[in-house]
């Protein structure tokens, strides 16, 4: 076959059906519906199988993308999935939630002048096929005598657990909530990542022999020190995430009707408040909802509020759309669904309705000044531009900080922001204890957390002197940390705006 060129490949991306905005804004079903076999094959035809493989380098876990695409073209779907899952254990999840435009697809040469190969959609298609067909890997696991305890069942913890289970360790994952998955479960809403997909992909990991113990709050039920001491774990991995929501400390913040995006999302995703009263947890939503912040968490919160029945949902952000840390696709979907945006606006005070609820928010307009250290132009209040914004529910999505529990209950060394300090092998200050994911970097992405889990697993194997033929995962020193999800590093110090 002649080599494909940019002119000979299909010019348009294969069609992927999407729920109509008007309909989907009122239901929790998935927004994007995924490829079928024909579309997947068509999309694979768009790949040039570049010898330099820029996309592989662009992927934080180095998936052999041209390799799996070639196998799909050869109708070896199962083989394609095997190759894919050598690097990424959660393809149906990552295919849905990775910011591919900044990673594999961002460096795909097809993207100039066409749209890049839809790598994420292909990855999702393979992952979904595996779930539908019930594929799992026949790993030949040679048990060894080591026991490893993992704290947190988010992507970091699960990836670490899987690699160590494959190496033959007896692995137990402890999760504080009553269901595993971390942010995948409680944070990212069903219409972007259905719970059934999370269940299925975690289920394939459990088949490796990993034991997951939910309802177990490490630090309080037992400490890290006890795990490596009397409980007899040879090594421990901490992947507890970054989920402590921030507030701004402006007046009115404790009114009923003011809540964090995490609370809204947890009530809806983990506790299924959308189905109250069939499920016991309620989440009454306001008529006019304001969401402060413009990261992906904010987008998720806005779209959930809409689906719960809010009449209007407005994003209030102190910079402009150009500085918004949200993925373009999310912004686009949110706008399509009718979310309104108040750019260059900062809240000053939340006003009481007289009975403990919210009546309005006093805001001030901003303008962009000089660039700050992060290179972004600093928003400055415009004097005299205060106005009242009518709203009855205010949702904070201005980022998270480190959860304090492990720091409170252990001698482990934290950095000055309260995150766990590690060296480049992800070892912490306690011997045999490793950490990775959001609890080390601050909020980042699913794939980076997974990569950290795998890297820690390889360090743990070295620490336990387990010989193992697997290639050691080495992430690129990509400067992705903290810039993609939640809120970026520079955005974290959302200071109270004051008039001079």
């Amino acid at each position, binding site marked *: 076959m002649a080599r494909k060129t940019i002119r000979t490949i299909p010019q348009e991306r294969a069609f992927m059906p999407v729920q109509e905005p008007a309909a989907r804004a009122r239901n929790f079903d998935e927004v994007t519906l995924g490829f079928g076999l024909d579309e997947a094959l068509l999309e694979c035809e768009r790949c040039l199988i570049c010898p330099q493989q820029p996309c592989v380098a662009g992927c934080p876990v180095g998936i052999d993308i041209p390799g799996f695409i070639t196998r799909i073209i050869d109708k070896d779907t199962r083989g394609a999935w095997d190759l894919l899952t050598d690097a990424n254990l959660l393809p149906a999840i990552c295919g849905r939630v990775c910011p591919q435009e900044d990673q594999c697809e961002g460096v795909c040469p097809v993207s100039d002048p066409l749209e890049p190969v839809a790598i994420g959609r292909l990855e999702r298609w393979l992952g979904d096929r595996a779930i539908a067909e019930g594929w799992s890997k026949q790993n030949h696991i040679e048990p060894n005598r080591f026991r490893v305890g993992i704290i947190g069942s988010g992507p970091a913890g699960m990836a670490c657990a899987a690699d160590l289970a494959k190496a033959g360790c007896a692995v137990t994952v402890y999760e504080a909530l009553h269901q595993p998955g971390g942010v995948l479960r409680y944070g990212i809403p069903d219409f972007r990542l259905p719970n059934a997909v999370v269940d299925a992909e975690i289920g394939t990991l459990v088949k490796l022999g990993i034991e997951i113990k939910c309802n177990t709050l490490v630090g309080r039920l*037992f400490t890290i020190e006890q795990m490596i001491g009397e409980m007899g774990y040879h090594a421990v991995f901490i992947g507890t995430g970054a989920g402590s929501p921030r507030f701004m400390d402006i007046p009115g913040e404790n009114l009923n009707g003011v809540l964090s995006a995490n609370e809204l999302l947890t009530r809806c995703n983990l506790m299924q408040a959308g189905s109250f009263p069939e499920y016991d947890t309620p989440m009454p939503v306001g008529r006019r909802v304001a969401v402060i912040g413009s990261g992906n968490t904010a987008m998720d919160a806005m779209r959930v509020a809409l689906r719960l029945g809010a009449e209007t949902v407005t994003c209030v952000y102190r910079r402009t759309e150009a500085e918004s840390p949200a993925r373009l696709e999310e912004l686009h979907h949110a706008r399509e669904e009718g979310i309104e945006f108040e750019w260059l606006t900062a809240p000053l005070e939340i006003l009481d309705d007289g009975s*403990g609820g919210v009546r309005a928010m006093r805001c001030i307009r901003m303008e962009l000044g000089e660039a700050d250290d992060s290179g972004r132009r600093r928003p400055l209040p415009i004097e005299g531009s205060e106005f009242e914004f009518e709203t009855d529910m205010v949702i904070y999505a201005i980022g998270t900080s480190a959860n304090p529990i492990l720091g409170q209950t252990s001698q482990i060394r934290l950095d000055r922001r309260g995150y766990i300090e590690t060296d480049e092998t992800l070892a912490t200050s306690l011997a045999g204890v490793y950490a990775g994911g959001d609890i080390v970097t601050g909020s980042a992405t699913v794939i980076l957390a997974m990569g950290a889990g795998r890297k820690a697993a390889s360090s743990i194997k070295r620490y336990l002197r387990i010989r193992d033929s697997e290639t050691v995962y080495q992430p690129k020193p990509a400067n992705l940390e903290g810039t993609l999800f939640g809120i970026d590093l520079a955005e974290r110090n959302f200071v109270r705006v004051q008039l001079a």
Partner: protein
Amino acid sequence: MADRDDRRERDAPVRDQVSGAEHDGIAASGFPILARTDFSEVTFLLEIHHPAMARAARPGQFVIFITHDRGERIPLTLADFDPAKGTVTVVVQAVGKTTRAMQRDCRQGSTIFGMVGPMGVPSRIGEASKVVCVGGGLGVAPIYPQARGFKQAGAYVIGVVGFRSRDLIFWEDKFRAVCDEFVICTDDGSAGIKGRVTDGVEAAIAKHSDIDEVIAIGPPIMMKACAETTRPHGIKTTVSLNPIMVDGTGMCGGCRVRVGGRIRFACVDGPDFDGHEVDFDDLMTRLRRFKQEEQAALERWTESCRRIDLEPAHPGGAGGA
């Protein structure tokens, strides 16, 4: 932390330490109820088998319960724990849907779907040599481990507990065993002194000039009153706050309270705070956050109970209430 029977466990697999039935290798759930005692029409005690929690528990901590797979996560204070028996005890007041359903369904021999804890920072049982432990309403049981803790630490313990009337009194013997002085207050005067717990606290302050600390647990209005009682005397007053919670791990911020003008998360920064610093009005407002939904859930549940009660007894569908 736990210093008791841990040696014995050194080689035991963790499986045995963290009890719970398993489904597909996921979940640690199904904690057996070993005993139940009813104290009144609305108050009941559950003693549950959870050896790891019994070992780890400290006074002032709480547990989050989930009673079924569609259930809410509700916090309950550990009213007692026994590492030797491997049990933890909670005393529940049936006030709404979840707690009433527990009152109906939780029996000796049945299991709790999910339980996580102990949560929260343990109470600081410090060097205080003379303390007053005050419990009212749903705070009577939770104050017990604190009283015991102070007693064990060598303090002189004055217990003050409030009930509406004589027939609602429970644990009198237990309290007397750990208190140097024990005062019961009843609204109607049918036992102990007639009046509120604050009257008991006033009396104790009048009698002892050297009280180091007052610990009060109960409804917010009661804790507020206690804090106001001690404020003029400058006696350190610790209260245990009970805002509405979801995860209990510091992740949602739903449990935030105002203490000393700052936002704190009761589940990870508390639940104990300095009573003179707490904004109780804020707490009480926030407890009304889901009033309508709570009402609706309770009505719906009561209705469904009524239907279930009618059906088997009256297959024809007839019958009175």
